[in-house]
């Protein structure tokens, strides 16, 4: 859809989510200390928390800009169903933020001494999990769209909803690193993403309509 192209073009911050992810991977060792064993132990968790935060920081762009300049009012009266608008915007967010994170994560794994066996699972986990992050985030962004600079409120609402994704995602990677079976977290992660993609666009569109009123 054109909306996607325009979202990409207007969003601008293609590399920025990446850069943020990178910075986080640099900061954590600086805070925690340089010991490789400790870092390797916490690497999957840190990478997941980093992906989460990188998503989070770009969430407020999803609807707030459109709300402020009045586009959202106009989109709501346009022939496109608002559910489709939400889904497209979440997809655009994932493509600009989630996908680059997935691609660059192995490099950051290096910085955090992630064990070799875990790299494949890291990619799989992020690939499965980040769409859910974008979708949940779009819902949160729809909830807070009327709040000026609601960045912090948004994170407050969204982060708890990210918990299941985070837990299963990090678990998947660390099990993968230790060579344990990964079936359960894999299935759960996929389930969360599928569920989010199926239900949340409707919830988000509903909430948007209420916020516009």
């Amino acid at each position, binding site marked *: 859809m*054109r909306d996607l192209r*325009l979202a990409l073009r207007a969003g601008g911050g293609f590399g920025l989510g990446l850069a943020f992810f990178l910075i986080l991977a640099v900061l954590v060792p600086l805070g925690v200390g340089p010991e490789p064993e400790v870092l390797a132990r916490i690497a999957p968790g840190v990478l997941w928390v980093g992906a989460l935060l990188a998503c989070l920081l770009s969430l407020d762009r999803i609807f707030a800009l459109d709300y402020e*300049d*009045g*586009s959202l009012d106009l989109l*709501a009266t346009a*022939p496109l169903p608002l559910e489709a608008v939400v889904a497209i915007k979440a997809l655009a967010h994932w493509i600009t933020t989630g996908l680059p994170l997935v691609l660059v994560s192995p490099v950051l794994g290096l910085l955090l001494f992630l064990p070799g066996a875990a790299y494949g699972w890291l990619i799989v986990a992020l690939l499965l999990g980040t769409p859910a992050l974008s979708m949940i985030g779009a819902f949160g962004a729809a909830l807070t769209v009327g709040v000026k600079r609601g960045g912090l409120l948004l994170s407050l609402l969204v982060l708890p909803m990210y918990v299941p994704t985070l837990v299963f995602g990090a678990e998947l990677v660390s099990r993968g690193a230790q060579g344990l079976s990964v079936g359960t977290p894999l299935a759960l992660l996929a389930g969360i993403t599928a569920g989010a993609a199926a239900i949340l666009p409707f919830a988000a569109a509903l909430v948007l309509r209420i916020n*516009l009123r």
Partner: protein
Amino acid sequence: MGLRVCDLAVARGGVPLLEGVNFALAPGQALVLRGPNGCGKTTLLRVVAGLQPALSGTVEGGEAVAYAAHADGIKATLSVAENLSFWGAVYGAGDVKAALERMNLRALSGRAAATLSAGQKRRLGLARLLVTGRPVWVLDEPTVSLDAASVALFADLVRGHLAAGGMALIATHIDLGLPEAQELDLRAHKARLPEPGDAGGFDEAFL
């Protein structure tokens, strides 16, 4: 076809503003809403556009509406032409080139919208109406910041739209140069305070 508003009452922030508003627009007709600041023109237009529920009464034909609000819905980072073609794509109709030409924006079409002056932005906002292909235009103070020449251009635009069988509902404080349009003074429809104890005390508790 057409827009018909029956016995409409609207409220904003829980406060009833207007009531008993009745009007109908047939193709080729325009209606200008008048009333002092804060009387509820914007609220009424939002109800007609379907963005807000009415307190009571009905709006027929609200799905054929193209709405232009105080804010223009312009993306500052996109160029003028890109802004328009986005809306053109959303509505799946309309000729962007012709709209640019019509609103005297061709020279500006490659410029980022952020660099437009106030009046130029407004002209872009009005050009959007042309690419919607919708018959009913609902316009909230469309001539704000426009100079005299642009106001005349706008009047022309509306006249053309009416001639093509369109309709227009316009809230404004100034003279638009559209003598053929009907006028509706909203002062006559100011909502009365509900009588104490009117509706059995239940609704009253929340008003």
